[in-house]
């Protein structure tokens, strides 16, 4: 059994929406709804789901940018929400994020070198020359040249800006990288370069990735295990190979058959795709409205995420029989 780096237990995050100034009815949205998840040391865990399913909220909870409504996250056996100031600072050094939008996540008034050096300054690591050296060496590692060090972010292309974002995340030598849609805004040829880079860096620095994406192809390329999220819940968790070759949850199947295939001859879909994600059901399975396999029980009882074999979990009453 590999070491557990992050252990998430019964994690909840709810937001209250008011329906307007004159309307006192409130709706509660469970962005993250009772999630149990483990991230093993050295793995890439892919997290996939449609927009609004809570992927990014989960990332924000793990990085302690948000506090949960209930539940906890253990990092190396310690609850991150009970960290004192000192421990939190060291946690922040150990866990870094790579963001999707490189326009808004890089400071336009800082040079590439300045951006990459900043985390070192914040954490008081080394003296000035050490920091510059460390930043330059990480820049070389992610494929940026020395000549580019003093340029500002608007002088870089999208792919290069993402390289700066990656360098900034890596310069503190973290253990866990949370990559929130890191390649979604890039063109396919640049996306491939960045994906290869992330894969290489993981090996070189012994990193653990939580890789969030809505793109099943990207997840398939990079992940060891894949978790599928739907409306705040994990509905399926399995090894990469299993998710793509024998998806168990009807939602996973629908997602997979919605991905446009690059084979023009294959135009028919295996599962009919219908509906949109929405919080309509108070009872039963959250996916029942869109599910082609729905039976009576689905409308009454919510399926639990249950172990089907060694490595796969699935939250469906009919898993294994459909």
């Amino acid at each position, binding site marked *: 059994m590999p070491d557990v780096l992050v252990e998430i237990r019964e994690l909840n995050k709810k937001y209250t929406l008011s329906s307007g100034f004159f309307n006192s009815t409130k709706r509660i949205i469970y962005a993250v709804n009772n999630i149990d998840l483990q991230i093993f040391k050295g793995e890439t865990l892919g997290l996939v789901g449609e927009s609004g399913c809570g992927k990014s909220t989960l990332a924000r909870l793990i990085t302690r940018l948000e506090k949960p409504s209930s539940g906890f996250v253990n990092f190396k056996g310690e609850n991150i929400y009970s960290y004192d100031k000192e421990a939190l600072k060291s946690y922040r050094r150990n866990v870094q994020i790579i963001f999707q939008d490189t326009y808004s996540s890089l400071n336009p008034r800082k040079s590439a070198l300045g951006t990459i050096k900043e985390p070192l300054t914040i954490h008081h690591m080394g003296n000035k020359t050490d920091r510059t050296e460390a930043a330059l060496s990480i820049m070389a590692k992610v494929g940026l040249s020395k000549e580019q060090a003093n340029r500002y972010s608007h002088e870089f292309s999208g792919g290069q800006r993402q390289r700066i974002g990656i360098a900034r995340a890596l310069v503190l030598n973290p253990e866990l990288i949370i990559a929130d849609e890191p390649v979604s805004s890039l063109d396919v040829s640049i996306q491939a370069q960045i994906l*290869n880079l992330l894969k290489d860096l993981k090996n070189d620095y012994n990193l653990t990735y939580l890789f969030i994406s809505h793109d099943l192809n990207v997840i398939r390329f990079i992940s060891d295990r894949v978790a599928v999220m739907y409306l705040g819940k994990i509905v399926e968790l399995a090894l990469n190979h299993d998710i793509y070759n024998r998806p168990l949850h009807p939602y996973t199947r629908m997602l997979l058959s919605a991905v446009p295939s690059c084979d*023009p001859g294959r135009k028919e879909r295996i599962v009919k795709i219908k509906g949109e994600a929405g919080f309509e059901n108070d009872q039963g399975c959250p996916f029942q409205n869109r599910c082609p396999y729905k039976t009576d029980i689905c409308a009454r009882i919510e399926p639990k995420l249950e172990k089907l074999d060694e490595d796969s979990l699935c939250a469906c009453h009919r898993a294994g029989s459909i």
Partner: protein
Amino acid sequence: MPALLEIKDLMTVFDTVRGRIKAVDGVSLKINSGQTLGIVGESGCGKTMLALSIMRLVPSGGKIINGEIIFSGHDLLKISQEEMRARRGSDISMIFQEPMTSLNPVFRVGEQIAEAIRLHQNLPAKQAMDLSVELLGEVGIADPQKRARDYPHNLSGGMRQRVMIAMAMSCNPKLLLADEPTTALDVTIQAQILDLISSLKQKNNMAVILITHDLGVVAQAAQKVAVMYAGKIVESAAVEVIFANPLHPYTRGLLESIPARCVTSAQREDHLKTIPGSVPSLYDLAPGCRFQDRCPYAEEVCSRIEPPLLEIGTGHLVSCWKYSPSNNNRIRE
């Protein structure tokens, strides 16, 4: 049968302080009724400018300086502004990537569709409204009567795009320009929108120009494909041909860098193939082929003379010296 739309040698330029850039640089293409033409390329390759040029909606600063856009026998570049305005939305419609910014937030969606109808057809308000409800039903919106009274912010991204499609379809256009219509949507919604566009196309015998950066979308929805690079079409062919036998090194590179390609092949490869470098700046294009810096097959001639777009097989056009007739027995593997 003459083509519904034929573009000949179209050139759209922008004059900026840093000099002139050719956003669309000598593009020629043809499309027939009932056909979907996919235009693929990376950001900045000029695919959106091509669509806007067809609509004669090039943003200020840009102008069309050369070429013909022949739409059912008439050159759209020669007709007056008023005639063009009458055609936009009736003969030729366009849908955009971001349905939120293309809908007016302060009007109910039903009213917005009715407005489009009344602009082109002389209908009383009541009838136009009924028609707009009917159109909403047609594009797969449940309970259209009620939804017509919603504002855009009440609707999800997928529903907004359906509203945009309903509006575009309101006057039975002969040609629909769809500029990245599904890029902002989730895969399951994307699949439904693509299905909707293709069923409407079949029903109305409409031509569709589908602009996208996603080769998967093209494979699924188009019959013909044109690959654009830095303002030019570098390869075009039937969709099966492009995927089975891509010729231009750029097309090959694009196909190889899709994660799906490498993972669907028997074993998971460790690395994706990539195209080195990035798209050249249109400000200072070197002479010769635009792809030369990134091309693994670049030769001496590529840096001197721009390769012409030549027909290699039936309907398969490619712009690369590697395939020029005089170059027949060299590097073709």
